């Protein structure tokens, strides 16, 4: 066919020229057999050529046919002595007829049998023959009319010419076109040397028989014509064995030998004239051709059907055998009637080992009762379907999980068994088991919920968290575990999750609670994960009890608050301490100065004192020591001033101890009495009874009262002075008041009394009350002064009985 494709690529004009040349040659040859002066030949292969050319190369090549027919006819007419004028138009008309015949035939065949390439079906052969019979009418009619009416030949009737013409064209197309139309390279391939031998033999026999019949001399016209039927068995044999090639060979052999025989007045159809004989021969050839073609097509159809069946069978077999699923047929006793090859892969057994055994033989004993039940149900419901999952033992002893479905086709005559499809789901099952184990032993409570909200799976932790048993939880509505307050919102949330299933935490920025069986609510955190299961999309909720964490957070929060409070207090104290320290540093500056001055002053005073002493000793005999006594007195006063200065400088943080306040006061009183006794001052003591020891610095307390008593005594200038010392407890405070009947303090001086170096006394540093105030303040006490000018003063020292804790903290 590659040659054909090359031809198809040629230009139309080139094809026309080639076609015209070939057509001219064949037509010229054929016209030699025509009735004299008519160009109506009973043998007309050019019609087959024309049909084939139009069929394979397209309608476009018709001019080649016309030209070929025109030239061939012209040559023959001119040779027969026709003048140009009748010969040319007659030839032209004949050419038109021949072209039309081919065009019409192809057109009809195409419209009858669309898309065929080979005349491979019986129906196609009949359509082909019909198209040819119809198409050849045009050529015969136009050609005969042209010859008969334009240049009639003597002694030839119109209908005879027409019939000869038509028949010649029909047989020409059927014989020759069928050769081309049925040609296919594959059909001509030689499969074995036996078939070559057979082909040679049958070819020889066919030729021999044809030659024997058509080359033989038969004594009587028409009497022996039936011997031609001898050809049929051989033509049929040839066709039967070799299909279309055989048919084509038979037709060609018969045609050529029969036509040649008749041309030389041989064969059973020999009559008066060659053309008439050939008409009968052509009829015979036409019949033979249609017969063997039909037979070939029928054979081809059957062969193709067989191949289709084989192909389909192979395809289904392949599908069944290469499937991952096994197809098995079992009877009502579950005995295996058939099982597909993958069985070997899944169970390790060959098919033969299984046949005739009930399938329960390999099933896990635990699974048998359930599957038997399902199987019995299936047996009793014709056409029904059932599903089961079970374990089967492989030949090597291992167990495989199989999932299968069975269909009852006992009533189906083609099957008559129960069809079981099953596949190996061991991997899936193992994965599922692992998943369930992971969930079961998770420290997090896991609950799997289906779309309707009923619980499908829970683990041990879930039981503990909610206080329900597993049996109670399974198939319970998940809403039962949601506190009532949120319960009616929950189904909407659940539905929402199914619309957009992806792993996420539940209830972001909301506090979630789980409702226990005992009604208690537990704070929880929940993560949601969508999981695809056999029952559809489920949600795995992972629930963590955060009670402990909440507690810890609460404790942390509380601790933080108290820590903040503590820091606050401490920083307040620190600020206070800083203030105090600042005061101390101020005092220290004065202290340094005072100590320096005191030291420097003491030495000269000491020397003066010594000098006065020595002078006094030397002048004892003089008797008058008045001036020396004055000097010594002033030296003592000078020393007092230095002491005051030094003690102000010495002020420091109290050294707390339990002290007996009365004992200290007595010391001070006796000291004062020693100094001021000569002034005639009486000191009265009014001590409250049953007073505890107080916590204070003994030296500082002593210093305070020394000063106060000193001041009180010094304030008394008139005789009959009285100082009353009162001690009493006032709640947590100790109140010591020193009342004198001295000069009193002017109102404008009262608020200056604690200022350093303030004094109204002729002799005094102005530090006494300053020191007292400092010391009392250090003890967290206070000084109250009540004074009337000219009447006297009452100074009250109020001290806490016990040291104040935070003072201790700051002093530490």
């Amino acid at each position, binding site marked *: 066919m590659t040659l054909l494709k090359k031809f198809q690529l040629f230009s139309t004009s080139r094809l026309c020229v080639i076609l015209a040349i070939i057509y001219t040659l064949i037509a010229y040859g054929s016209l030699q057999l025509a009735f004299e002066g008519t160009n109506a030949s009973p043998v007309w292969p050019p019609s087959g050529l024309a049909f084939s050319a139009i069929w394979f190369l397209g309608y476009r090549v018709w001019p080649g046919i016309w030209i070929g027919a025109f030239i061939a006819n012209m040559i023959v007419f001119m040779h027969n002595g026709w003048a140009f004028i009748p010969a040319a138009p007659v030839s032209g008309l004949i050419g038109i007829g021949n072209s039309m015949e081919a065009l019409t035939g192809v057109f009809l065949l195409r419209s009858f049998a669309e898309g065929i390439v080979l005349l491979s079906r019986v129906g196609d052969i009949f359509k082909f023959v019909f198209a040819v019979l119809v198409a050849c009418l045009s050529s015969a009619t136009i050609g005969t009319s042209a010859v008969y009416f334009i240049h009639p030949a003597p002694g030839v009737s119109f209908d005879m010419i027409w019939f000869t013409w038509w028949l010649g064209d029909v047989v020409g197309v059927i014989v020759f076109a069928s050769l081309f139309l049925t040609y296919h390279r594959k059909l001509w391939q030689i499969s074995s040397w036996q078939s070559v031998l057979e082909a040679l033999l049958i070819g020889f026999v066919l030729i021999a028989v044809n030659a024997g019949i058509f080359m033989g001399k038969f004594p009587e016209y028409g009497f022996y014509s039936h011997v031609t039927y001898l050809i049929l068995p051989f033509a049929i044999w040839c066709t039967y064995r070799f299909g279309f090639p055989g048919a084509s060979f038979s037709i060609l052999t018969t045609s050529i030998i029969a036509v040649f025989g008749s041309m030389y007045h041989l064969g059973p159809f020999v009559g008066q004239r060659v053309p008439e004989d050939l008409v009968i021969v052509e009829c015979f050839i036409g019949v033979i051709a249609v017969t063997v073609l039909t037979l070939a097509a029928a054979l081809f159809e059957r062969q193709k059907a067989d191949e289709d069946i084989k192909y389909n069978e192979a395809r289904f077999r392949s599908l069944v055998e290469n499937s991952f699923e096994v197809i098995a047929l079992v009877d009502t006793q579950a005995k295996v009637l058939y099982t597909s090859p993958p069985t070997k892969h899944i169970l390790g057994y060959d098919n033969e080992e299984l046949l005739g055994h009930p399938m329960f033989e390999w099933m896990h004993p635990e699974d048998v009762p359930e599957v038997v039940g399902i199987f019995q149900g299936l047996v009793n419901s014709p056409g029904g379907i059932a599903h089961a999952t079970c374990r089967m033992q492989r030949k090597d002893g291992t167990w495989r999980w199989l999932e299968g479905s069975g269909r009852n086709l006992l009533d189906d005559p083609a099957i008559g068994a129960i069809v079981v499809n099953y596949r190996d789901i061991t991997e899936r099952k193992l994965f599922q088991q692992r998943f369930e184990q992971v969930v079961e032993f998770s420290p997090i409570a896991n609950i799997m919920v289906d779309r309707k909200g009923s619980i499908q799976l829970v683990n041990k932790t879930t039981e503990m968290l909610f206080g329900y048993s597993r049996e109670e939880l399974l198939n319970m509505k998940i809403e039962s575990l949601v506190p009532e307050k949120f319960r009616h919102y929950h189904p909407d949330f659940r539905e929402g999750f199914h619309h957009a299933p992806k792993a996420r935490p539940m209830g972001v920025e909301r506090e979630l609670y789980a409702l226990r069986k005992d009604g208690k609510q537990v704070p929880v955190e929940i993560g949601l994960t969508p999981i695809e299961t056999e029952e559809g999309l489920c949600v795995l909720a992972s629930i963590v009890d955060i009670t402990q964490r909440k507690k810890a957070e609460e404790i942390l929060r509380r601790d933080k608050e108290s820590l903040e409070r503590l820091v606050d207090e401490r920083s307040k104290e620190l600020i206070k301490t800083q203030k105090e320290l600042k005061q101390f540093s101020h005092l220290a500056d004065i202290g340094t100065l005072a100590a320096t001055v005191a030291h420097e002053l003491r030495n000269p005073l000491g*020397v003066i004192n010594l000098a006065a002493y020595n002078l006094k000793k030397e002048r004892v005999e003089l008797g008058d020591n008045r001036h020396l006594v004055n000097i010594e007195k002033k030296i003592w006063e000078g020393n007092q001033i230095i002491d005051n200065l030094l003690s102000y400088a010495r002020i420091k943080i109290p050294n707390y101890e339990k002290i007996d306040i009365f004992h200290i006061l007595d010391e001070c009183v006796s000291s004062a009495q020693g100094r001021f006794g000569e002034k005639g001052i009486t000191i009265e003591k009014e001590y409250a009874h049953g007073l505890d020891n107080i916590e204070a610095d003994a030296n500082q307390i002593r210093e305070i009262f020394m000063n106060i008593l000193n001041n009180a005594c010094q304030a008394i200038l008139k005789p009959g002075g009285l100082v009353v010392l009162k001690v009493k407890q006032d709640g947590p405070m100790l109140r010591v008041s020193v009342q004198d009947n001295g000069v009193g303090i002017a109102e404008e001086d009262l608020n200056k009394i604690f200022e350093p170096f303030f004094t109204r006394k002729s002799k005094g540093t102005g530090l006494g009350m300053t020191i007292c105030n400092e010391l009392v303040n250090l003890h967290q006490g206070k000084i109250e002064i009540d004074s009337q000018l000219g009447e006297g003063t009452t100074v009250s020292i109020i001290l806490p009985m016990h040291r104040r804790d935070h003072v201790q903290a700051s002093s530490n």
Partner: protein
Amino acid sequence: MFRLLLIDDDEELCAELCQVLEAEGFKVDTAYDGERGLRCLQDKEYHIIILDLKLPRLNGYGVLKKIKANPRKTKVMVLSGRPLGEPLLKEDGVSQDEEEKVLGLADLVINKPFMIENFITKVKVMALSVVEKSQ
């Protein structure tokens, strides 16, 4: 004859105190600074040393340490310008901790100002104890 060494930088004080002590029958030498005081100790034996703390060259603490570095029967009476616990001045040259320890070396510490009669009594008591020891 009882020998006393008075180490004090105040010349007037030394003169007056000498008179007081000599009136009581003591033989008194004086030194006006620490180094001179120590030199006197190398030359002669003294029963009692009366030592001021504030001295030029070597102060009283230094002198006291040197005296007590060698075992002697000499007694040391320190005349302190201030009672214990008073803030120390920079020129004292000892730390607060050292002060107590060094002063502990002295046989007696008398704070200024002192009553002259008391002072005389204390010197006499000390002199007696020296006599008892030497006997």
